[in-house]
């Protein structure tokens, strides 16, 4: 029996060397045949068992060298006893460097790397524990978000219910008012048509249309001007001083003169120009203003901006009817109708008889207008109807909004299956990088705000969660990325956009902003909304980490 005892350790030792770098699930395949041969795992070739792990590549698939690095693209399995086993690529086997991911040092020549799995394991454990702690705290906060979502749901349910009731009442009111208005209008329609033939009214409508068109064109021009000034601002701050292109230089100088800006080369040069930079902010709004004296009755730009809409929204029909009152009042009706006041009482009855006959006759002939049911009454009833309808519409809208919000709350594409993001709707996160403050209002807009004056740029509006086709909506990785796009266009470049990368954290914060490519920003931040609660299955990293991710 002694020979057996002696043989056993030797054989074990041999087998250990031959299976260096072999993963546990393949270890059963690394045994020699009876004739001491071995077949490559892809079956392509049978080689001598001596050729396995002999630091010389024989198999096309590289499977004969799991432990030496002699064949490219082979995974090398480090047992890492005391820690977690992991794979490293063969390019790291025997390269003289100690890998944290191969803490047992089995990938290097003996004596190169010690076994540090104890320390690595402990550090890893500590790190995992810390992460768990954050996650636990975060998950608690997250549960309050979910509670908020539920409360919000309740509130919205209430809104929907109460607005539904109000809508029912208001609908009845609308139909009542519509009856009245329609009755009144049917009487007055013919008269109104006649009044609308008035040259004054026609002219008023024409003026109104002209003014509306003018306003539309004016707005277009204002927008164009704004765009142009943005372009010129970008040119001014961004032009390449290279090559002293005179056309560019003149454009910049011309713009600075018109806009009352200091020359860009002087900005920030010294303390004096810092003040100038301050001035620049004030003057930038003056760009569109004009300094001309206004006639008394002329509107200022501000008034035009504010009050023109109201003016144009006037109800011209009502005005026409009101106008009638003015035209008719001082000699209320014609002399004919009021003559009676000048007549002696004795002949009054005869006169009235005559008058009635005459007016009837005249009215019939169309020479004068008879009195009609009051057009103001018609207008008023119409107004009442309109008001009621508006009220109804806003109630409906309120209900619709509430219904939509309700739908979004528990939508995986919206505020998440559990509604955990609802609470963060409109929450703005900020961070300072260099001369700018970066801000992202979740589900809203991302911005770049200069600290020293100048234009704020939109970096884009919320577009979607992680759009990658590899990611399943609703998964954790889906919510780890938000896309904000269609921000302000870069001068001669693309529209700015933001990728917001989020991870679990106990606070809602923006940690970093980088512009990896021109106008493409990457924000990173944390939020408790991503701290999903721990449920036994997580927390243990059983995944193979192949590809160099350190365990630390």
């Amino acid at each position, binding site marked *: 029996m002694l020979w057996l005892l002696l043989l056993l350790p030797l054989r074990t030792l041999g087998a250990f060397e031959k299976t260096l770098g072999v993963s546990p699930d393949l270890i059963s395949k690394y045994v020699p045949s009876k004739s001491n041969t071995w077949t490559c795992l892809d079956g392509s070739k049978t080689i001598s068992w001596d050729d396995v792990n002999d*630091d010389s590549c024989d198999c096309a698939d590289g499977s004969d060298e799991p432990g030496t690095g002699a064949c490219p693209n082979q995974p090398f399995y480090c047992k890492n006893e005391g820690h977690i086993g992991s794979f490293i690529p063969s390019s790291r086997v025997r390269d003289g460097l100690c890998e944290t991911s191969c803490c047992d040092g089995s990938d290097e020549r003996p004596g190169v790397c010690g076994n540090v799995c104890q320390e690595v394991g402990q550090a890893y454990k500590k790190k995992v524990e810390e992460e768990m702690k954050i996650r636990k705290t975060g998950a608690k906060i997250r549960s309050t978000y979910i509670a908020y979502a539920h409360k919000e749901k309740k509130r919205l349910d209430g809104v929907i219910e109460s607005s539904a009731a109000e809508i029912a009442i208001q609908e009845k009111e609308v139909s009542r008012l519509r009856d009245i208005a329609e009755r009144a209008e049917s009487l007055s329609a013919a008269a109104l048509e006649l009044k609308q033939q008035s040259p004054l009214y026609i002219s008023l409508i024409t003026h109104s249309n002209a003014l509306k068109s003018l306003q539309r064109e004016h707005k277009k021009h204002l927008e164009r001007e704004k765009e142009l000034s943005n372009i010129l601002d970008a040119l001014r701050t961004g032009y390449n001083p290279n090559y002293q292109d005179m056309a560019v230089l003149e454009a910049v100088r011309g713009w600075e003169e018109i806009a009352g800006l200091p020359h860009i*080369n002087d900005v920030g040069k010294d303390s004096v120009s810092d003040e100038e930079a301050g001035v620049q902010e004030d003057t930038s709004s003056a760009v569109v203003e004009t300094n001309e004296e206004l006639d008394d009755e002329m509107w200022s730009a501000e008034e035009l901006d504010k009050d023109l809409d109201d003016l144009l929204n006037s109800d011209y029909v009502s005005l026409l009817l009101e106008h009638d009152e003015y035209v008719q009042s001082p000699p209320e009706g014609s002399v004919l109708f009021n003559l009676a006041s000048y007549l002696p009482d004795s002949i009054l009855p005869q006169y009235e008889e005559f008058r009635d006959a005459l007016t009837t006759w005249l009215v019939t002939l169309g020479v004068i207008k008879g009195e009609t049911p009051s057009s103001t009454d018609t207008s008023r009833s119409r107004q009442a109807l309109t008001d009621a309808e508006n009220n109804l519409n806003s109630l409906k809208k309120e209900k619709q909004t509430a219904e939509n919000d309700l739908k979004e709350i528990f939508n995986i594409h919206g505020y998440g299956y559990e509604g955990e993001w609802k609470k963060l709707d409109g929450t703005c996160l900020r961070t300072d990088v260099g001369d700018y403050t970066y801000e992202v209002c979740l589900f809203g807009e991302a911005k770049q705000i200069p600290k020293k004056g100048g234009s704020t740029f939109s970096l884009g509006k919320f577009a979607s969660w992680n759009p990658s086709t590899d990611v399943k909506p609703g998964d954790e990785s889906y919510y780890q990325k938000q896309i904000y796009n269609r921000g302000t266009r870069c001068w001669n*470049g693309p529209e700015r956009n933001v990728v917001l990368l989020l991870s679990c954290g106990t606070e809602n914060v923006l940690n970093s902003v*980088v*512009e990896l490519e021109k106008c493409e920003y990457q924000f990173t931040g944390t939020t408790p909304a991503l701290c999903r609660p721990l449920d036994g299955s997580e927390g243990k990293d059983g995944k193979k980490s192949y590809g160099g991710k350190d365990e630390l």
Partner: protein
Amino acid sequence: MRSVALFGAIAALLALPEAFAVKSHDFKTCSQSGFCRRGRALAARAQEAQSSWKSPYSVDPTSISVSPENATAKAAVKSSLYPEIKFGLELRIHDDGVVRVLMDEVDGLRKRYDEAASWALVSEPTLSKGIRWAVGKKELRATFGKTNDIEIVLQYEPLLVRLRRGGEDQIVLNGRGLLHMEHFRTQTLKETVEEVASDENAEGQEVLQTENVRAWFEGDSEDDYWEEKFSSWTDSKPKGPESLSLDITFPNHGTVYGIPQHATNLSLPSTTGDSPSYSDPFRLYNADVFEYLASSPMSLYGSIPVMHAHSADSTVGIFNAVGSETWIDISYPSKKSTQTHWISESGIMDVFLLPGPTPEDIFAQYARLTGTTALPPHWSLGYHQCRWNYVSSDDVRTVQRRFDEEDMPVDVFWLDIEYAQDHKYFIWDHKTFPDPVEMTNDVAATGRKMVVIVDPHLKRTSDYPIYQEASDLDVLVKPKSGEGEYEGWCWSGSSSWIDHFNPASWDWWVSKFKTSQIDTGFSWTESTEDVHIWNDMNEPSIFNGPEITMPKDTIHYGGWEHRDVHNINGMLFHNNTAQAVRLRSEIPKRPFVLTRSFYAGSQRISAMWTGDNLGTWDHMAVGIKMVLANGIAGMAFAGSDVGGFFGNPEPEMLVRWYQVGIFSPFFRAHAHIDTKRREPFLLDEPYESIIRDLLRLRYTMLPIWYTAFRENSISGMPIVRPHYVMFPQDTAGFDIDDQFFIGSSGILVKPVTEKEKTEATVYLAEDQVYYDYFNQYAYRGASKGKYITVTAELHQIPVFIRGGSILPTRERPRRSSPLMKLDPFTLRVALSKTGTARGELYLDDGITYSHQQGELVWREFVAEKPKKKTVRISSRDLASQNPGKAVDGVVLAEYDPKNAFAKEIEEVRVEKIVVLGLNSKPSAVKLESGADLKWEFVPGVAASEKKEGTASVLTIKDPKVLITTDWAILIS
């Protein structure tokens, strides 16, 4: 982030690739340059006068003095136009047969700039001994050379210098009578001349007549003598006209190469004569040309005034040591002759005639003059990943991590200008790079390095210590007044430039790169010895200067005008930087400094790249030609930005560009700030895997590259060699510049530089077998030359092994090259048609200068046929046999094969030997010492056959032989 807006102007051009265009109005044509216009007008008058034209310059025979001891002859020269002006001519014959021809004005009003050669030359050349001058009545002669077949002839009237060999003119100076050295004069006021001219008295007549007497040669007017305007700039020209015109004719050579840097063919197209290729002369005036053209004689970032004239019979060359702006007209009066006309703005005549007669001789002769490429740090032959800009230290870490995750090798990460706060180089922007030392250490943890940019423009603010110290030291370039500091505009805004001609700047500049605190001011404590340097913008590029550079009337050390030293200026900057990087550590380490601007001699210290190329196919193609042209002009460590600096190359173009890049001596990917990121790990399949394989192929071949660098450092032989260098007698190959060989390895590459190509034609110049590197297919060349067609799908590069070569490679992929140090070698033995092969391998620590103490391994591998049916493959030591030729600049008295470095790698073995083209399956493969080896044989075409097809392949598994020891294997 400021850069978002800053470089918008460039984006306009990026958005519209068809709008790519050089701003040619920013740069002068010959007709806008006074002295070039005068020079060309002179040539035109000579052309018109034909045989009646006679150079006004002549040698005074009575003045000749010869000195046999130092091989020098001197003579007085005068011009019939200005009999009162004195010139001196000197001929010096060097010990290697090079003849130096110097001419200067003697006792002039001022002194012509005469220091160009002192910057270019590696040392004062050794003169020949025992030259016998024959002073004749009409000419002075001397015969010399190993076989006494070279002759230098100085004809007195008119002045003419001929270099002759075998009784034939090789190089002729002033053969066309275009020599003209404008002497210094005082300005005569124009009004006076006109007044006198309008005056009818006799004196006035005389003046007019005098003018006319010179007009046949000099022209009628004083064209831009005293002031020159270009665009909005005025060059004050306080010294007046001082240009030098010289015609150099090669009566028996029909092809010329050299005078980099130009984006053009290797074989230089004509600029004058019948239907010239270009209308302007080639120009040498270091310039930052934005979006340069892919075919143009316009000057670019660097200038090396060396030209080779080649024919099937011989090669000769000239090196014109001039530092001022120079224009060169080239014409080919016949297929077998070449005329050139060199017009320089200032400086003495200092021309070296290189007698050849082979390309190898020319390289050796030029290397004796200006030096060779110092052996670079080994890691610098790996892959360099650059971008304008990696925006933060975390960005750098992420890029590194991604390379590792994708298992792609890379050695160097680069930082462009945005790392520096307000473009104050050395000063990190801590908002984005809070931890530069830690970042560098993280990169260095895997054996990698960083290269960080340091540009020459210094921001003029008192809080910038580099500027402030330079200002206090008074070592900044001065404005034309000679007082104060020249101020110009560059990335850093208002800037000044160090005058590296001023010796006071040298030690100071060296001290700035110390990584530890120094007593005397700023030192770069926020860097480590793993940080190397990129010197860009050193033409110098000045945004608001004439032609985007420094005004010619600014003043350098010694009172020299910038016009005198312009082309040398960039070299001094990168030279001093390289010294600084070398000297910052206790034990000096080899510096890596990349320069954009360069001059003759730059090769001794730095690598160069071809500047801001465009992401277009034609720029990819011309990049190869430019690297070849630089290589033959000594600037061997060269490359073009992979992917193109401007633009967003599509994946196909990027893959093809990596195929070009891995076969360039310097291999770097770089991209403009407005481009999309394009690091190889960002590509989709199959592109990503193709590029991974390409990167790994580069690393596999690093032993071949390093061996080629050693050879270059000794002999000056280019690292990438065009056809005419390999086959000087094959006229069909003279114009080939789209395929090349790597060193003496026998690797022939023909990169594909056209869109959607699936095939390539390759020229094989000799009757030899060429094996496809990847599939071992054996192609046959022909002694008359032959084109073969090979498949070249996107994942394929036409790479061949010339029959008769042995290639040492390292086939194990690693993250970076230092991690390959102990990896075993594979030998590919590509048998020639006679069944033999040879190859070399050079190794050293790749970092320090210990190789100069003999710590190196230099091996030769030989396959021979000692018996008819036996092939013997052996390894032997070359260093012991040639200790004097092992290392550049050092003659090792003896070599110890057991030196410290050899011991470090003593366990490194040969893991595999692949023999291509054996006649038949061997009966036995064994070590000469007896042991049988394991092997496999796949039958195929034999090298000795005439047919084409896949070659027979013998694979010897793990022959158990070491790389540092002698061994032999017998195949019977």
